[in-house]
């Protein structure tokens, strides 16, 4: 193979400093082996699938996630700790931690007073960073017990930024050990609390 002639490539009408600049690039190119002519479509297809595979949440993995949350609760929070809610009428707030299904997500559940007549708890759910769902898909807020989804609190969808959803639930909170946000009913945990109250 014949090496290209530099003057033939750039012509002879450039100022000396530009010639020097281009000569340096010319030397770098001559010292460099050829890149592959093209990237195989099989590689592009394989890379396009990266990050799109749904993580498989077996019951064992879900139980493990809940167990980790319970340990965190015991170590860092204890049971029944009340959280400052910034002067609102809510009695306490529980942070929701992101799981591997949505590492960018965050959330919080604020719990208000329990209506003495009906027994319902007033809730406010604030979430951010969850992907917007399409095709009729939705998220579910659960109360969980011993690594299992035990009671549905409501369904919701998200927009951009922070989404706020007001709900009421009739459950006795002390009977549960975690709040969970999942996609559809029974899907993998996307957000998980380390305690209920």
């Amino acid at each position, binding site marked *: 193979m014949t090496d*290209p002639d530099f003057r033939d*490539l750039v012509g002879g009408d450039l100022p000396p400093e530009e010639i020097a600049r*281009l000569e340096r*690039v010319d030397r*770098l190119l001559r010292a*460099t082996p*050829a*890149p592959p002519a093209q990237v195989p479509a099989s590689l592009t297809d394989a890379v396009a699938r990266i*990050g799109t595979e749904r993580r498989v949440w077996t019951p064992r993995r879900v139980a493990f996630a809940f167990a980790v949350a319970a340990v965190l609760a015991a170590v860092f929070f204890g049971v029944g700790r009340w959280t400052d809610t910034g002067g609102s009428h809510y009695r306490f707030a529980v942070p929701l931690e992101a799981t591997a299904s949505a590492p960018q997500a965050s959330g919080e559940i604020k719990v208000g007073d329990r209506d003495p007549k009906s027994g319902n708890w007033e809730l406010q759910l604030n979430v951010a960073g969850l992907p917007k769902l399409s095709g009729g898909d939705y998220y579910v807020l659960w109360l969980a017990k011993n690594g299992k989804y035990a009671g549905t609190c409501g369904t919701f969808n998200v927009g951009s930024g922070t989404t706020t959803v007001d709900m009421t639930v009739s459950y006795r909170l002390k009977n549960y050990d975690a709040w969970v946000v999942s996609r559809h009913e029974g899907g993998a945990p996307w957000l998980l609390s380390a305690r209920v109250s």
Partner: protein
Amino acid sequence: MPVAVATAETDGRLIERVGRGDRDAFDQLYKRFARPVLAMAVRQLGDNGRAEDAAQETFAAVWRSARSYKAERGSGSAWLYAVARHAIIDRARQRREQAAEIPEEASADATPAERAEQSWLTWRVHSALEQLPERERVVIELAYWSGLSQTEIASYLDVPLGTVKTRTRTGLARLAGLLEEVRE
């Protein structure tokens, strides 16, 4: 006259976006680095199939670990180079070969340090080529690695000779800007 380098998003910025789960940034990063990664893998593994596997693992690792990238510790290109090199060495080790320092084609007699330097230089040049407009990249690759003359390139691409010369000169000038900090 020097040609201004297009103000594309930096590699580091793209990696930071990937770290936040931005799929579009990941696709841009793939377009920019697929050939440099594959070229390095082919040179070091000497086998197209295994090189493709290593390239795929590189981008999977980028997706998984982009959040660990810290701009203050170095450029995005250097971070991605390290990720790719790690994936390639891992792939080679799986086959129980002496892969960690397989000589580069261009410097078979070089010391390990020289080989590492050559690998980094090749990476930078290939990465810079990917940032050129397609029409400029093609004429430069044909000129330097196909052995075609300017007239033959014009005939091959079916464009006037003057167009080939303009694109070549413009592309070289753009590369000069992209490779300003590269040591020879």
